[in-house]
């Protein structure tokens, strides 16, 4: 290594240094230090002659290390480094001693010690420079594309500036339209020009600019890379409207049945789920607001879109509603009556007051059709050439047939009994499910083209295939009855529920005795009991072995049964059936108690010894369950241990290809809706099977359940209950007990729906959209873009004043936030610009409260900067358009901008009252007459030194601008910092206001701090020019003082990788050894890695251990070999 020759240059800085520090003496001393070849002092080292001293010495004396002792390196280090470079010396062989800011100035009072300290500093610098090494300055190319995040005024301005500079811009906006907060504003202070008028043109430019690729409904997912070379992954959320096709005619919104608060109008008015984000929306296209699938719809086994048809009912569109039900399944009338409605259990409204009567509403639209005569259905012509056979015409079979025929298959249903419907017809008594209703649902299916062959049992599947059917669905139900296996079960007078109900429904005339005991707790038991009553039995008792909670029957049914006088004997089970001379006489039961829960989760009943008791009876009806009747089924099939058909749980295919089975025959006795679901599942399998595609692949599509449904606007309203047939009219008659809603009730009830998913997917909009622009199937889409720089303009959010309870926001109608008032004064707003109270009156007095959430350490310590001015603006407008008195409650008036003070003056001239004092309370607790009906604002008028109570009609809270709640996520996504208040941190508050620690990422607008429009625009342009200058430079030099790893010492422990915030180090394998390697482009040179490195392999260039320890030794005048 060449001999080290250090040149030391001590500056006087006029008298700034020399006035205190004896620069000559320092220079002289420096000359005595080891390796110092030359030491000079000079009046102004930073002047050209000063710099020339250095250059010449480098050239002539071969100086190869330079120390300058002058002002702070933060000021002139770059200057002298450049000097070195100009003279051909590597700028990193330079050390700076700060003898002005750190010595002459703060120690002006002690010249001697100041001089001594200066010597120490110089000595240290000399020691350090000795160890310095030349560093190579690297350059990387810059990708000319720019990403702008946020479509508010800041983003728009920045994007346009760059795009006009002929550079490509990707703009990512989270909402459906750009415009941000500014487009919500009515007018902008102090000139009062309307912000729509000035912003809209910019928005349209942005939308149409050839160099701007606008991505609305989009969010940045992932950022990688470094300055000049970023890779950005963007998620485009579906708009469900094709922006290019939509001509914003608005038909979709007209027919849309769902109303939600309009965010753009600050919730002061409502909008539809299909909506135009704002009148001047860019892109000028409607959007559909989907927040996920409603829980009711997810809960429905048959996947009926409950929210959808309820929404339509609420609009009086009953036919359309029924259509929507039938998109899922054909049994509106049936399930509208007998469904166990799992949807209602999940209904979000239930968490607020009571669930919506979903089932009854479905029934209503079905009945409505019956009432109003449905016109004949046009049969579906078969488009597929394979035929399908369905065995059994119960809910499962018909549901399957229904789906298949709509797929274009020819379907034949084989039914062994004389009429179609299975259990629906033969299991459920008329008073619950009138035959006409069932017939209507079935005839609908038949009219579509499904052929139903009754009285045609199927013994042999091969036979069916031979008839040319390509696939078979077996849904023959569970016809057999479960035996109790107790003595006397065969006695005459004992009958099984299914047989009993079959006879009842077939109209067979049955004679029952007076006393009937029904055994069991399911729907069949209740049906049998209530039927017996109608057949004349006097005393009907249901015996159930568990308690009411475990009872499987529909609870409303149970209640009705009891209501009709049926007794239910819980926790008892028959032990034997007694008969006198062959005639059934009594039944002996034993009391049970509940033990441990069994497999089904229900607590298993156990008999209590010696608690037998007997009841005299004439008939016993046993309803303890149904079984699959194998004798009625084709031979070829396999069975489970439960005696049900064995099928693949997902595809429902039996062990025979092309033969599927579902419904009770597979599941054992279950709800109708479950059977329907099975039928639909089978239809999917059969279709896949016949098309020859995999039965399983991506079959389960689980819809995303909507999260946190807002109940803010819901009013308590009890659930409408269906009218019931009078008790005395029920005796001996099978007339239907539950009756239908009238139209008014139905609509009212439907209006209770919270529209959880917002868009209900009723698809009315699709019908009316002539452009065919709407597509409800749209999915998330991901795009990757490469950019060289990024501008964050993510804006702010308004502070929520309701966290200050004393101000009564959300409690009092007429306490408004600034943005709300903006909408009120806006001609296009909910009140067409008329300043009015909630009740429509014009306010007689208005209070404007400053610093709400600002300048208050309990909320935000900072000043929000715009409130004083917009407060004045409101006063202006109120004065201009109303006769109201206006009171401005302020702490300090801050009117610093151009024409601000003049505006203040103008408003004062209008006779606005200014009260200096922070408002304590806003209350409706009045004292005395003049306060009645007003809101009272209390504060101290600090100038009068008096407490005052000001009664007003309206209060406007100048709420703080605060960092967006997700600012932290954004910050970490782009690895930039945040201030304590959450706003993004700039590199330097004065000299680098739009830069961030991550080079190539710039910030503009209110995401950096609260500011008004002009400042925002200025800052946006600043950010744009930063990006442009980066682009026009075309390349960037990366930080040279970065960390490096001495591979020969490193053992790849990965501690550096773990601690680095910028992901610069990574562990790699080179010739079999694990070592860390630094991506210099990512490294910021913060040095954290070197601190945690156990081996000393990781070091920071220009800050390595030798240099620093040398410096320390030097400062303390310690010498080491």
């Amino acid at each position: 290594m060449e001999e080290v020759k250090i040149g030391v240059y001590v500056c006087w800085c006029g008298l700034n240094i020399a006035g205190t520090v004896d620069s000559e003496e320092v220079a002289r001393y420096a000359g005595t230090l080891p390796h110092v070849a030359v030491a000079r002092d000079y009046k102004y080292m930073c002047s050209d002659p000063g710099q020339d001293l250095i250059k010449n010495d480098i050239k002539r004396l071969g100086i190869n290390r330079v120390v300058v002792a002058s002002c702070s390196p933060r000021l002139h280090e770059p200057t002298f480094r450049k000097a070195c470079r100009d003279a051909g010396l590597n700028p990193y062989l330079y050390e700076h001693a700060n003898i002005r800011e750190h010595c002459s100035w703060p120690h002006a009072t002690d010249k001697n010690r100041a001089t001594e300290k200066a010597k120490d500093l110089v000595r240290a610098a000399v020691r350090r420079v000795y160890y310095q090494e030349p560093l190579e300055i690297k350059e990387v190319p810059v990708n000319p594309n720019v990403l702008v995040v946020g479509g508010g005024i800041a983003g728009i301005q920045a994007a346009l500036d760059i795009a006009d500079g002929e550079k490509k811009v990707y703009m990512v906006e989270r909402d459906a339209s750009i415009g941000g907060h500014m487009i919500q504003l009515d007018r902008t202070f102090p000139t009062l020009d309307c912000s729509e008028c000035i912003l809209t043109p910019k928005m349209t430019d942005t939308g149409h600019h050839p160099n701007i690729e606008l991505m609305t409904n989009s969010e940045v997912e992932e950022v990688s890379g470094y300055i000049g070379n970023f890779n950005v992954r963007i998620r485009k959320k579906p708009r469900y409207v094709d922006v290019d096709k939509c001509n914003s005619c608005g038909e979709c919104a007209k027919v849309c049945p769902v109303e939600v608060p309009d965010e753009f109008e600050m919730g002061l008015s409502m909008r539809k789920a299909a909506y135009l984000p704002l009148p001047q929306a860019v892109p000028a296209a409607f959007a559909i607001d989907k927040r996920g699938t409603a829980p009711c719809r997810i809960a429905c086994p048959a996947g009926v879109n409950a929210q959808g048809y309820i929404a339509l009912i609420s609009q009086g569109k009953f036919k359309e509603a029924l259509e929507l039900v039938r998109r899922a399944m054909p049994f509106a009338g049936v399930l509208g009556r007998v469904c166990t409605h799992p949807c209602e259990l999940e209904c979000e409204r239930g968490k607020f007051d009571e669930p919506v009567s979903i089932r009854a509403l479905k029934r209503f639209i079905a009945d409505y059709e019956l009432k109003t005569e449905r016109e004949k259905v046009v049969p579906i012509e078969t488009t597929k050439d394979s035929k399908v056979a369905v065995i059994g015409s119960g809910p499962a079979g018909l549901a399957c047939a229904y789906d298949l025929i709509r797929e274009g298959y020819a379907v034949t249903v084989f039914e062994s009994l004389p009429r179609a419907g299975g259990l629906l017809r033969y299991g459920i008594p008329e008073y619950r499910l009138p035959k006409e209703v069932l017939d209507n649902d079935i005839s609908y299916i038949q009219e579509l083209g499904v052929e139903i062959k009754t009285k045609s049992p199927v013994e042999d599947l091969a036979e069916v295939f031979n008839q040319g059917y390509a696939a078979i669905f077996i849904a023959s139900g569970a016809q057999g009855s479960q035996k109790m296996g107790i003595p006397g079960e065969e006695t005459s007078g004992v009958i099984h529920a299914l047989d009993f109900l079959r006879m009842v429904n077939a109209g067979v005339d049955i004679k029952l005795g007076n006393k009937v005991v029904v055994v069991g707790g399911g729907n069949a038991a209740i049906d049998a009991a209530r039927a017996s009553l109608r057949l004349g039995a006097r005393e009907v008792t249901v015996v159930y072995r568990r308690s009411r909670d475990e009872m499987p029957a529909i609870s409303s049914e149970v209640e009705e049964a009891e209501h009709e006088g049926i007794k239910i004997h819980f926790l008892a089970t028959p032990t034997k059936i007694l008969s006198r001379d062959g005639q059934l006489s009594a039944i002996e039961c034993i009391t049970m108690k509940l033990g441990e829960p069994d497999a089904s989760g229900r607590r298993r009943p156990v008999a209590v010894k010696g608690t037998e008791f007997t009841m005299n009876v004439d008939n016993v009806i046993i309803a303890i369950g149904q079984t699959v009747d194998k004798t009625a089924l084709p031979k070829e099939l396999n069975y489970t241990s439960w005696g049900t058909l064995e099928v693949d749980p997902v595809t429902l295919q039996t062990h025979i290809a092309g033969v599927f089975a579902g419904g009770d025959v597979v599941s054992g006795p279950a709800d109708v809706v479950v059977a329907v679901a099975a039928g639909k599942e089978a239809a999917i399998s059969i279709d896949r099977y016949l098309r020859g595609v995999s039965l399983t692949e991506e079959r389960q599509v689980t819809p995303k359940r909507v999260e946190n449904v807002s109940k803010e606007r819901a009013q308590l309203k009890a659930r409408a209950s269906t009218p019931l047939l009078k008790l005395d009219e029920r005796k001996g008659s099978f007339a239907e007990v539950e009756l239908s809603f009238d139209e008014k009730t139905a609509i009212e009830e439907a209006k209770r729906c919270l529209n959880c998913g917002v868009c209900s997917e009723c698809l009315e909009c699709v019908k009316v959209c002539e452009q065919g622009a709407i597509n409800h199937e749209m999915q998330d889409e991901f795009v990757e873009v490469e950019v060289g720089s990024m501008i964050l303009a993510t804006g702010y959010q308004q502070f929520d004043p309701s966290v200050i309870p004393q101000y009564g926001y959300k409690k009092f109608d007429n306490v408004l936030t600034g943005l709300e008032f903006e909408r009120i004064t806006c001609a296009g707003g909910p009140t067409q610009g008329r300043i009015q109270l909630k009740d429509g009156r014009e306010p007689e007095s208005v209070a404007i409260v400053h610093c709400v959430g600002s300048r208050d350490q309990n909320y935000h310590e900072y000043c929000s900067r715009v409130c004083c001015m917009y407060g004045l603006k409101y006063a202006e407008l109120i004065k201009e358009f109303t006769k109201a008195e206006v009171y401005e409650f302020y702490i300090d008036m801050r009117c610093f901008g151009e024409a601000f003070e003049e505006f203040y003056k103008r408003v004062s001239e209008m006779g606005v009252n200014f009260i200096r004092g922070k408002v304590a309370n806003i209350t409706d607790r009045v004292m005395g007459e003049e306060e009645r009906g007003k809101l009272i604002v209390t504060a101290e008028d600090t100038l009068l030194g008096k407490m005052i109570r000001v009664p007003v009609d309206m209060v406007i809270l100048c709420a703080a601008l605060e960092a967006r709640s997700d600012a932290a996520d954004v910050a970490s996504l782009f690895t930039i910092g945040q201030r304590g208040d959450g706003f993004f941190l700039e590199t330097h508050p004065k000299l680098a206001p739009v830069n961030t620690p991550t080079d190539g990422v710039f910030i503009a607008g209110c995401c950096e701090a609260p500011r008004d429009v002009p400042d925002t625009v200025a800052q946006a342009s600043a950010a744009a020019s930063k990006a442009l200058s980066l682009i026009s430079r075309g390349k960037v030099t990366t930080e040279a003082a970065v960390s490096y790893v001495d591979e020969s010492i490193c053992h790849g422990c990965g501690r550096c990788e773990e601690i680095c915030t910028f992901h610069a180090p990574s562990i790699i394998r080179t010739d079999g050894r694990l070592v860390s390697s630094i991506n210099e482009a990512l490294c910021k040179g913060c040095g954290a890695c070197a601190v945690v490195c156990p081996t000393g392999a990781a070091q920071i260039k220009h800050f390595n251990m030798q240099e620093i320890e040398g410096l320390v030794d030097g400062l303390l005048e310690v010498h080491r070999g």
Partner: protein
Amino acid sequence: MSLEDIIQETKTYYCLECGKCTSICPVARYDPAFSPRAMIENALLGPEDDLVFNRELFSCLTCYTCQQRCPSDVDFPVFVRKARTIAQDNGQHGICAHSGQLQSLARLMTSPDIKQRRLEWLSDKYRTSDDSDVLLWVGCAPYFEAIFEDIEFRALDITEASLKILNLLGIEPKLLPDEKCCGHDVVWTGDVETFKKLAEHNATQIKESGVQKIIFSCPEGYRTLKLDYPNYGFDVGCELQHISEFLADRIEKGGVKFNEVKKRVTYQDPCRLGRHLGIYDAPRKVLKSIPGIEFVEMQYSGWDAICCGTSAWTNCDSYSNMIRAERLSEATATKAETLITCCPKCQTHFRCAMTDKGKEKRSMPSIEVMDLANLVANAIEEGSNLSK
């Protein structure tokens, strides 16, 4: 001292250039650039700088494997150690692991004016006595404790365990409040100046304390006081014993009772205890006398044992990590649950290696590492025979 003197002192000139040293050297096995033989050749043929400015000078583990194999009994480790002194005088400090903190600590301790707070961990759980004639050497444990928390290593556990053992065996030892670093690491990195100061301080302290016997839980301290202090003319003038030797004796005498410990363990011979001082049997004897302990040897054990891969807080590069990896996989190969050692350093290095961070999947085997003292302290039964 010049290189010439060193050559004389360590009989380097007897070197036959046979290369046994290099072939057996654990470092050389991985690091192609490292060769004891070559170094000696350099030293003999000069120039001096080739040796002194050779970074590899600080890669030697001074594990004594080579010396044992050397047909002409060249004391390479001592040769290296002295050569390092010359290097130091020439401003070559080698690569200090942990950014030289530990060397720094040693130097700081040489200040006569400090009042250490090295015994704050001592709780009334333990019995000590100032007029005891047995001294328990605490060593650098308190400092390691502070430095190595992030690798979950509590060096003081070992000290406390040793103290517990002594107590249970009826000894209330003395602990020196102003004991200082024994100087092992500085002397082996060639900083003799610092070493002398420390040695002098400790020697006087010990003399003044008037103890008859010092018990070590740290082989390095043991070695340093036993061999290096006298070499540099500091005599501590009393019996020195490693805790394992002490235990072995007591077990010999009988009466030490152990509870059963169901464990399959293997044992790492620390270089200092093993090759430096030839103590191989004592620890094994202790292990075997604990009921339930199933003792298995590693492939290389006793005088063949492989070093834990680094020493005296110098070079800890990837080769040194490979040595550790190799040793640990030997240990795991024995199917032992626990790797027993009786040197805090071995434990530090093994644990460090096993807590390596980073995304890349590492091939570092993992096994519980435990000091003999801890194992014994847990096993030894209250009220074991207290009779001498």
